[in-house]
């Protein structure tokens, strides 16, 4: 069965800290995605990656960076955490082949920045 694992379910950090969110998929998928989910705003794409070492900005990349050194792992980095980055973060993966490949999601990391 398809599995996307996010390293933490809950995380509390302080303003200004550098924060790493990790995501691992076991399906050998080429594509990986990072979203944030906020009430009334739905899911918004932060960054995505089509292949190892490849990355593209999504709709709200400001304040974030990503790293994909291995195919199965996609990391989201908050360079200097701010309170407006308190949110639910969701990682997803999908097979290459176009838009008709459904994305498979992890269970999310609820991040609080104090």
């Amino acid at each position, binding site marked *: 069965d398809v599995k996307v694992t996010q390293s933490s379910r809950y995380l509390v950090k302080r303003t200004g800290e550098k924060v790493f969110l990790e995501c691992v998929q076991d399906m050998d998928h080429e594509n990986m995605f990072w979203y944030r989910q906020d009430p009334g705003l739905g899911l918004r794409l932060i960054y995505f990656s089509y292949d190892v070492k490849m990355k593209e900005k999504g709709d709200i990349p400001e304040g974030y960076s990503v790293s994909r050194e291995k195919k199965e792992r996609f990391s989201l980095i908050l360079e200097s955490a701010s309170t407006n980055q308190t949110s639910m973060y969701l990682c997803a993966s999908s097979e290459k082949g176009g838009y*008709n*490949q459904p994305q498979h999601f992890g269970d999310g990391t609820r991040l609080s920045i104090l």
Partner: protein
Amino acid sequence: DQQVKQNSPSLSVQEGRISILNCDYTNSMFDYFLWYKKYPAEGPTFLISISSIKDKNEDGRFTVFLNKSAKHLSLHIVPSQPGDSAVYFCAASTGNEKLTFGTGTRLTIIP
């Protein structure tokens, strides 16, 4: 600018009746649409999809309808069951792997 809109934040339906969730979009380049379902404390799971060359797609109790001229799609659940209580997101794509999601509708099935 919200390109995919779900104007009803919540919906309550009696068990056994039909649930209809709606989604509107503004980008005429969208040509593939998906619905995802999300339970609390879990990630969204894929439910059903439809290509713009079709106007209807069925999978068991779930049917998605697409009206391209109105830029509107809907998800019908018949009959509604308590386990259908969740947040439903519609999503759209212009033909690449990137999806644009709506804001979600919380569906509550009343026993």
